[in-house]
């Protein structure tokens, strides 16, 4: 009898785990709470570092969503029970699913920028998040975004909701830096006369071609990097924003007017990830992301036999490393089921 696995979460991690397992002859149920697959991939326009269209990656992942995979869209999980080696999932619509293994791929959410009260998101008109900027890019709404903006000075704020005790997140979300640099270049492509400033504390250009992107941003696009964390934004009478930060490389406080402020919001574990973890008794780290059995070596299994983790449930990760991680999870699941 062939073995089966249930994968919870139809984003990049879930899709790739599902297709790999199906290819290995394992019966797969893929559960997605939304009406379509892709997760956050659906929100991004172009991907760093090479600015290729995110739709291409989605198409790659989607082409393997074949017959071996039963797809459950708009599905919400009520309960998960484990009896012996078997898992039983009850969905809200009354459906019941059974499997020999369970993969948690419920991913992350972006930090709610409203919690960073002093940046005025949700209050001041011209403060948006990096996610909203992607949506504008993706839907070709650039014209709306910059309509009526004359001098076109844009501020990009790093570490919004990350590395911040007051926001409840001490960790680095690690991908905001490169996202900020990518978006800075993209704005500049659209509006060559725009002045763009990135406010950063450390630029964590950790992956291949990231540092080169930073170099390109400076050399080719003239994007300016000011080392200092935004302390507050307030609104001027003309709806521009007055920013206050320390220019730490000169040691002087600095004030500056910008027309548009973009907040690079970080990763937080999705509420669904945390709900399932509580249901199953999985261990959360002090950053609230889920802990694998071993941080260095057994990175895709958990302490509960048959329960596996894939992708950003374990912390911030890029799409490339999420896909790589998903394959690793698939291999672990297949080995377990053998």
């Amino acid at each position, binding site marked *: 009898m062939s073995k089966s696995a249930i994968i919870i979460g139809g984003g990049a991690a879930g899709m790739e785990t599902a297709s790999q397992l199906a290819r290995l002859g394992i019966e797969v149920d893929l559960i997605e709470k939304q009406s379509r697959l892709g997760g956050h991939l659906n929100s991004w326009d172009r991907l760093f570092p090479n600015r290729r269209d995110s739709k291409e990656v989605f198409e790659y992942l989607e082409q393997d969503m074949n017959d071996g995979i039963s797809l459950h869209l708009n599905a919400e999980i009520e309960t998960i029970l484990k009896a012996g080696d078997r898992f039983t999932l009850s969905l809200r619509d009354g459906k019941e699913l059974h499997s020999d293994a369970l993969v948690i791929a419920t991913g992350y959410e972006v930090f709610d920028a409203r919690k960073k009260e002093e940046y005025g998101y949700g209050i001041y008109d011209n403060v948006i998040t990096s996610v909203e900027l992607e949506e504008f890019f993706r839907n070709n709404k650039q014209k709306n975004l910059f309509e009526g903006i004359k001098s076109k000075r844009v501020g990009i704020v790093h570490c919004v909701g990350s590395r911040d005790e007051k926001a409840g997140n001490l960790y680095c979300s690690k991908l905001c830096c490169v996202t900020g640099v990518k978006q800075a270049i993209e704005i500049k492509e659209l509006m060559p006369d725009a002045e763009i400033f990135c406010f950063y504390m450390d*630029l964590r250009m950790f992956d291949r071609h990231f540092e080169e992107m930073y*170099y390109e941003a*400076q*050399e080719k696009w*003239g994007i300016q990097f000011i080392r200092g964390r935004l302390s507050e934004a307030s609104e001027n009478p003309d709806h521009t924003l007055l920013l206050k930060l320390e*220019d730490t490389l*000169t040691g002087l*406080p600095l*004030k500056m*007017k910008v027309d548009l402020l973009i907040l690079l919001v970080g990763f937080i574990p999705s509420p669904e990830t945390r709900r399932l973890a509580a249901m199953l008794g999985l261990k959360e780290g002090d950053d609230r992301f889920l802990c694998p059995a071993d941080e260095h070596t057994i990175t895709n299994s958990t302490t509960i036999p048959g329960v596996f983790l894939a992708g950003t449930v374990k912390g911030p990760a890029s799409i490339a490393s999420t896909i790589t991680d998903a394959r690793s999870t698939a291999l672990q699941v297949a080995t377990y089921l053998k």
Partner: protein
Amino acid sequence: MKPFGYTITKDRQIDFDANDREVTGFINEVEPSIRLCMGCGSCTATCSAGHFTDLNIRRIHTFVQRGELQHLKKEIMKCMLCGKCQLVCPRGVNLRNLILSIHTALEKSGI
């Protein structure tokens, strides 16, 4: 007026919008490698003049970009143009030409 015994002071914030950035534009044009600075401080660490004065060569780059001309003027007078900074810069910024261009720009704008 009554003698108050104190005066109103102007703040020392860098007021980016009030600063004259014509010099900034000029320097970025004649020495575009200025854009490449990543604030690492290698230049300051090796600077000969910096060992004897409070010159911070790394800060010169920042003052140019912010249009802080008075600070800039004060700083560059201390540089002896020995060029050691240029040797160590990991981003290849042409610091000697940068300093010379700043001199030219400041002179041109009468500062």
